[in-house]
């Protein structure tokens, strides 16, 4: 009787041991899994990085006096769709851009678009279920026009198609 009881106790502790080991393993694997399965939202970041070209690259809209480029100053002569197309040509066709250059009081100076087939989805950005992501921001810029600089606003709207 005592022997049988000892065996039962032994089994009981073995089961407890096994349960603890399983919990330990599951916890470790779960931690590793959570770490590797983080879904990082990069669409906004991609659009942001792409949009920085508008302000910093002399090949986009940034004013350049021939010697240096002035980041954040938009040259109205450069603000065209051809230029936008050229400066973003290495970006895929999965991104559409709509840029509106405005005076400080909000009146529109010019509007340019890239990949109009995607830009047409902008009014649908508020939908919850969609196969594209939207990105928008407003930037305070300086406008270079006729050798003068004045304050302005650049509205950037972007549609990024999910793949």
């Amino acid at each position, binding site marked *: 009787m005592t022997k049988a009881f000892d*065996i039962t106790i*032994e*089994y009981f502790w*073995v089961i407890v*041991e*096994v349960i603890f*080991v*399983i919990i330990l*393993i*599951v916890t470790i*694997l*779960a931690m*590793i*899994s*959570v770490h*590797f*399965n*983080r*879904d*990082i*939202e*990069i669409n*906004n*970041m991609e659009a*942001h990085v792409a949009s*920085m070209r508008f*302000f910093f690259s002399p090949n986009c809209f940034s004013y350049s006096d021939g010697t240096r480029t002035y*980041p*954040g*100053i938009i040259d109205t002569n450069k603000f065209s769709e051809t230029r936008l197309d050229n400066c973003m040509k290495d970006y895929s066709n999965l991104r559409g851009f709509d840029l509106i250059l405005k005076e*400080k009081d909000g009146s529109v100076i010019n509007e340019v678009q890239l990949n109009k087939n995607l830009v047409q989805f902008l009014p649908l950005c*508020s939908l919850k279920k969609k196969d594209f992501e939207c990105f928008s*921001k*407003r*930037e*305070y*810029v*300086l406008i270079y026009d006729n050798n003068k*600089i*004045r*304050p302005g*606003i650049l509205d950037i709207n972007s549609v990024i198609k999910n793949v």
Partner: protein
Amino acid sequence: MYKKAINRPVISVFIFILLLLLIFLFWYLQIPGKVIHPMAEKQTIKAEITNDATLVLLNYLRTPIILDNKEIDMTDLIILWQNNKEKYSNILNEETKEIFGGVYGYCYTFNIYDNEQKYNFGSNQYMPGDSLTQVRIPTKEGDLIVELNPNQFFSRKFYSTQKGGIDPYKSCEVK
């Protein structure tokens, strides 16, 4: 001793098989597109806010204004204000609100530190803490530190994108 000699190897094999099964299960869960992991977490990278704020602050300081029929920029106005706060406070306040108001509504903090104290020209809902971007202007009277923090605007904009119901341009307005 006899009992352990019989039982332990069996248990070890059992645990080993179980371990293999668990590893296989988690490996399966990690294959993209097969199972949506319940713990998947969305992260938003916020470095872009700092980038934006730096550009806006740079443009702010270079903004031309007309003062006493002379064209100067905001940096000059800040230096004038440092020498005569009474005279230039109003115009500095108005210009600042006009410039940042167009981009961040009322949701931003804009401070100028001189050797006396800190002056806040931004939102009344001043939130102490980290300065997102700052510029140091050297002057005869000592350095001026100009700092901008539009965190409030971006957090409201982010909330608005996720849940709606908030106009980030108006939400910090003091009525």
